[in-house]
C-alpha cells in the first residue's frame, strides 16, 4: 500500500530530516513546523515519486525548498542568531571543547555560531556534507545542483567560515 510505504520511508529519514530542519530553522518549534509541513507536502506529491530509493534526498530537497519559500516570503534572509536559534542546537554539545586554531583557541559553539552566519546556500551543503556525512552526489540531489557545484560551495563555505572565525585555517579542498 502506498500509505504504508510512505510511512516506512519517512521513518527512515525522520531523524535526518529533523536535524536538517534544525540546521535550517535553529529553533525547536520552527523546525517541528517545517518538518510537519514538509511531510504534508510530501504526502501530496508522493504519488509522483517514481524512484522510492531516492526518497531521502527528495524529501530533504522538498523541505529545503519549503524553507527557502518561507524566507522569501519574509523578504529577507534572517540570521538564525536573530531569533535565538543557537540556544537550541549548538548548546547541546555535551562538552564545550576548545579547538586550537593557528592563532587562538576556539570554543566549539563559536564555530557553529559562525556556521549559522553563512548564507543558506553555503551553510546547507557544508552541514550536510560535514555534519551529516552525506556524499557530494546526495547533497547535490538535496540542493538541486551538480556534485561539482556542491564541492565549490563547500570550499567557499569553509573559506568564509575561516574569515568569520578570524583564523587562518587551512581550507581543505
Amino acid at each position, binding site marked *: 500500500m502506498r500509505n504504508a510505504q510512505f510511512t516506512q520511508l519517512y*521513518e527512515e529519514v525522520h531523524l535526518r530530516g529533523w*536535524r536538517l530542519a534544525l540546521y535550517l530553522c535553529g529553533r525547536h518549534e520552527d523546525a517541528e513546523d517545517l*518538518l*510537519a509541513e514538509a511531510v504534508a507536502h510530501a504526502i501530496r506529491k508522493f504519488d509522483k515519486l517514481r524512484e522510492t530509493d531516492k526518497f531521502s534526498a527528495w524529501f530533504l530537497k522538498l523541505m529545503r525548498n519549503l524553507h527557502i519559500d518561507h524566507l522569501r516570503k519574509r523578504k529577507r534572509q534572517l540570521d538564525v542568531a536573530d531569533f535565538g536559534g543557537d540556544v537550541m542546537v549548538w548548546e547541546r554539545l555535551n562538552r564545550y*571543547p576548545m579547538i586550537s586554531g593557528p592563532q587562538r583557541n*576556539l570554543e566549539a559553539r563559536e564555530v557553529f555560531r559562525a*556556521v549559522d552566519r553563512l548564507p543558506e546556500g553555503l551553510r546547507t551543503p557544508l552541514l550536510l556534507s560535514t555534519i551529516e556525512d552525506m556524499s557530494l552526489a546526495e547533497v547535490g540531489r538535496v540542493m538541486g545542483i551538480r556534485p561539482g557545484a556542491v564541492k565549490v560551495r563547500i570550499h567557499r563555505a569553509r573559506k568564509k567560515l575561516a574569515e568569520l572565525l578570524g*583564523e587562518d585555517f587551512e581550507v581543505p579542498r
Partner: protein
Amino acid sequence: MMAPQIPSNDPLAAARQHLDFEALAKGAPSSKTILFKAQTIVPMVPHKPWERIGKAGAGLAVALVLLFVPLIPTTTRLAMVKVQFENTFTRDKAQEVAYDMARNLPAQMLASAEFAEAPGQAADQHTGRLTLRLASLRLSPEELAEASHDSLDGVADAQPFITPTTAAQQRTWQSIPQAIATRLRKEDNKVSNFPPANTLANEIIGDSRMFGSALAAHLAKSGQHLVSFAFVDDGANALQPADSFLVPAWPRWMSVGVADYDALPRLQQQEIRTDAASFLGGMLLTSSGIVLADRPGQQLPVLLTVADRNGNADPVATRMVQAEFGSLLAEKPPVGKFETESLVNTALKSVLDGLDYKVDYRQYSVFEPGQAEDTYLATITINGKRRTGLKELSMPDDNGRGKEEF
C-alpha cells in the same frame, strides 16, 4: 572541569566530534507526531481500489463519457410557408408589397416572390396574383406562419392567406466533441456565394441532410420518393448513381435521386427536375431582397447585391439599384447576357453616380442548360466612398403617395 583542547585545521570537523547527536535525537518529536501533524495540514489519500484511478484516469473517463454519451439534443427544421392574397395586384403594387414585407422581415427568415399575370388581359392592365414564399431554419411552420403574418401586417390592403407548405425536422443527439466537430465541418464546407452576414442562407445551403429532408417532403406531395440527395460543388465531374440526376442550380448544384427515375417518361423526368430546381431557387437564398418572378422558379435575369468593401450586404443600396433596374427592365426587356449587363450598368450609373464601385458578374443556370433562361448574379462592391452619396430614388407608387426616400 577543563575543556579539552583539540588541535585541528578543520574547526568544523573538530566541532562535529562533540556534537551530541543522541541529545539532538532525544529532543526530536517522534515520527508519529510529525505524521499526525502533517495530516492535520493535508490528509493522506484513502487508497481504496476505485480511488486509485488518479486525476489522469478520471480525466480520461470524463473525456470518454463526453465522446460517446449523447448529451445534446439538436433539433433543426426547415419550414416554409406560402403566402397568397385574395385579390390581384398590378405589377408595381405587387413589387411594393414584396419590398415592404422584405423590410419587415426578421433576420432568421428568407423570402421570395412570384408574380403571375392573369392571361388574356389588355396591355394596360397587367394585374396578377402575387405569391410569397418564406423559409426559416429555426422556426416551426406555425411560428413561421405567425412571423409571416407580422411581417405582412399593414403591408397590403388585402388579406393574406398563409399556408405551411413544407416542414422537415431532424432530431439528433450529439456529444459535445461531435457537436464541435460538426460545426467545424460546416465551416470547411461553407459556400462562398453569400456574404458571411447571411448566416441563414449559409446554414441552409451547408446542411445537405436537412435540405434533402425538406426536398423529400416537397417531392412527396407529387408522389415522388426521394432516395438520395447531395449538394455537389464540382458538378461537371460528379458521378451520378442510378435513378439520380444532376441539377445545376444556383448556388450549389444538387444530385437528386428519385425512386424509379430512370423508368419514368421523359416528360415526367423533366417535371421532377424542374420541381427540384425551383424548390431551391424559390427560397431566394441571396440577401439581395425580393425580386418578382413571372412563374415559379424563375427570377429576374439578374440578382443584384450591393456590398461594402468588407463584403457585407447593403440592403438599402441593393434595393435602390434593384428598383432602378426593375424600372429599366420594364421599359426594355434585355435580350442576352450583354444587354442585361448593360442594363445593370445603366442602373448602377444612375444610382451610384460618382461612387467608386466594381461589378462582379456570375452566371448561373437555374434550369438544365439549353432548356431555360439563365440567371446572372451581380455583386456590386462599393470600394471607397460612403454610400451617403447615393442618389435619392423614388419607389414605384400607384397611389401617388409621393416619393419615398431611402
